[in-house]
């Protein structure tokens, strides 16, 4: 990668969280959480509100001490190093800009703390202002800026001193959709340009999938799965992850047989072949398939596909895609999403076949 030659990149840190636990009184906010954050990666912490993402980020930053566990950076134990000495860049929920300082002074703050010469400060601030597109706003106070502009100041302030890690806590949750997408691209670009390790918190699954090199999924203070966006989306290790990352069809299977890489189960007297990405403790299991991986046809597709019969109950038009609502003979409801352009309309109440390639479905424990 060409970026690895840049000065910022050399500073990217590697972090190892080992069995981190955090309790508030009797409440367990984080439970025995271990996670390796790679040098220069873009890791997203994804989970519903209250799942412990901010708590974990605060522990990474050094603002909160973990109740149990250790934190390592580049092989050194930093559990007891205070925040001011870790000096990671941080973008807070709500930005936390200094309200009494101008844009320029906000961005200059971390440099002045480090005792940089005023010429150096001036040059670095100028560069950063240009990089985040705030030229012409240098002398304004934060209150005079729009939400997106405040966001840019927060990013500039967090990156100007070339920190080895940048932590971002739901930075875009207050922005509207268009601005949010623009800022996502900007953060992605800043990550590529700086090469710094980014740890990004969000509760928005599409944001997590779009930005990250890896996603860590949190629920109730537990880390459920870590992996590349494609892996967690297409091979979730449990039902919560599968359902949190997007809509999913679940078909209860009668008998399940494991044979090597695949599993075979019975659904309404048809045999269904699935990926075996998990080890099953009990015998009960469901087949999980994303709506966009299924398609509707008049006759069953046989080559490397599973197929079941369904009745069409309705359709919702989404522009680029159309979602069909179906029901199997035994009454399980299904959703199938197909590109609008490549399908001819399907009449409601008609009996159809729903098929999907065997490598797209996966096995999940029932109820887990």
């Amino acid at each position: 990668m060409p970026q690895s030659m840049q000065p910022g990149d050399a500073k990217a840190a590697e972090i190892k969280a080992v069995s981190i636990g955090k309790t508030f009184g009797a409440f367990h906010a984080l439970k025995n959480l271990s996670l390796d954050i790679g040098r220069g990666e873009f890791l997203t912490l994804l989970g519903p509100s209250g799942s412990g993402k901010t708590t974990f980020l605060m522990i990474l930053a050094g603002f909160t001490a973990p109740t149990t566990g250790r934190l390592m950076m580049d092989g050194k134990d930093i559990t007891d190093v205070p925040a001011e000495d870790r000096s990671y860049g941080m973008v807070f929920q709500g930005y936390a800009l200094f309200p009494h300082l101008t844009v320029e002074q906000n961005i200059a703050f971390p440099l002045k703390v480090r005792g940089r010469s005023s010429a150096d400060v001036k040059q670095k601030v100028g560069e950063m202002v240009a990089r985040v597109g705030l030229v012409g706003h240098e002398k304004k106070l934060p209150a005079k800026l729009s939400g997106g502009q405040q966001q840019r100041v927060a990013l500039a302030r967090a990156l100007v001193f070339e920190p080895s890690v940048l932590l971002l806590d739901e930075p875009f949750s207050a922005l509207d959709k268009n601005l949010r997408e623009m800022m996502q691209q900007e953060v992605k670009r800043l990550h590529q340009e700086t090469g710094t390790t980014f740890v990004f918190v969000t509760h928005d699954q599409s944001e997590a999938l779009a930005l990250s090199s890896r996603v860590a999924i949190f629920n109730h203070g537990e880390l459920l799965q870590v992996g590349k966006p494609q892996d967690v989306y297409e091979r979730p290790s449990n039902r919560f992850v599968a359902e949190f990352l997007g809509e999913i069809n679940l078909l209860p299977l009668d008998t399940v047989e494991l044979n090597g890489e695949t599993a075979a189960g019975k659904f309404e007297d048809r045999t269904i072949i699935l990926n075996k990405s998990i080890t099953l403790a009990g015998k009960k299991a469901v087949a999980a398939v994303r709506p966009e991986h299924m398609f509707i046809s008049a006759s069953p597709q046989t080559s490397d596909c599973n197929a079941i019969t369904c009745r069409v109950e309705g359709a919702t038009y989404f522009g680029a895609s159309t979602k069909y609502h179906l029901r199997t003979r035994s009454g399980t409801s299904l959703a199938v999403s197909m590109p609008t352009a490549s399908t001819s309309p399907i009449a409601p109440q008609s009996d159809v076949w729903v098929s999907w390639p065997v490598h797209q479905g996966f096995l999940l424990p029932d109820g887990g």
Partner: protein
Amino acid sequence: MIGKSVTSRKILLLAPLLLFLGLAYVVPFLGVVRWSFTMPEVGLGQYRALMTDPLVQSVFIRTLRICLIVTAAVLVTAYAIAYVWVRGSSVQRMLAEFCILVPFWISVLTRAFGWLAMLSNRGLINTWLQSAGIISEPLALARNELGVIIGMTHFLIPFAVFPIASAMRSIDERVLLAARGMGASRTRIFWTVFVPLTYGGLIGAALIVFVFALGFFVTPAILGGGRSVMVAELVYLRIFQSPDWGLGAAISVVLVVFIGILLALMRRFIKPAHMIG
């Protein structure tokens, strides 16, 4: 249209207060203004006397000096108390609250005499210092300007704590965390982030304390022992001890106009909400 009717309804709600203020302050004050121009004879004579009388001038200068020193002393102390009250541990908070509220239950007169008992030549402090052999002659702590400053400062501290504490409470904790995360030391955060974010409260507190101090009467009369006369006491002396009502009235008018100008100036710089918090 709607805005107008809401405004007029609000004024209606305020009417009893306005009526009370009018009857209790404005009307009597207009009487005082008239005295200042008519006693003992019609004209600007009293104001001319006021400008030239060295005694009156020295009292005005002393009043300003005491008020400035008291305001500075109050702000520093109140800032420390407010800081502990807002950011201290729960025990510290309770202690601070106690320090702020107890003075409200004790009258200004009692407190002035209390300080006299502490500071006078045969008061607690001097007796203790003498018996401990640290001093041979009593220190002049009361019946002078120092005594007045100590007594007034003590009385005025709670009034400054409230606007300052309210400014401190409205600081976003994350802003302070952000500064820490950028590597700033606690001292640096205090002086470059925390204190600037409380300027509104500080200015409000300074104004309240200064204006309040200008009109102080009981404390200087008791702790100054007649040797440190301030403007309010001078007015009293002119009206009740030498029947020089005209001069007393003129001094009052000057004081009120001065305070009015001060308030108007301050209003230009800060919103009233900031002062009360």
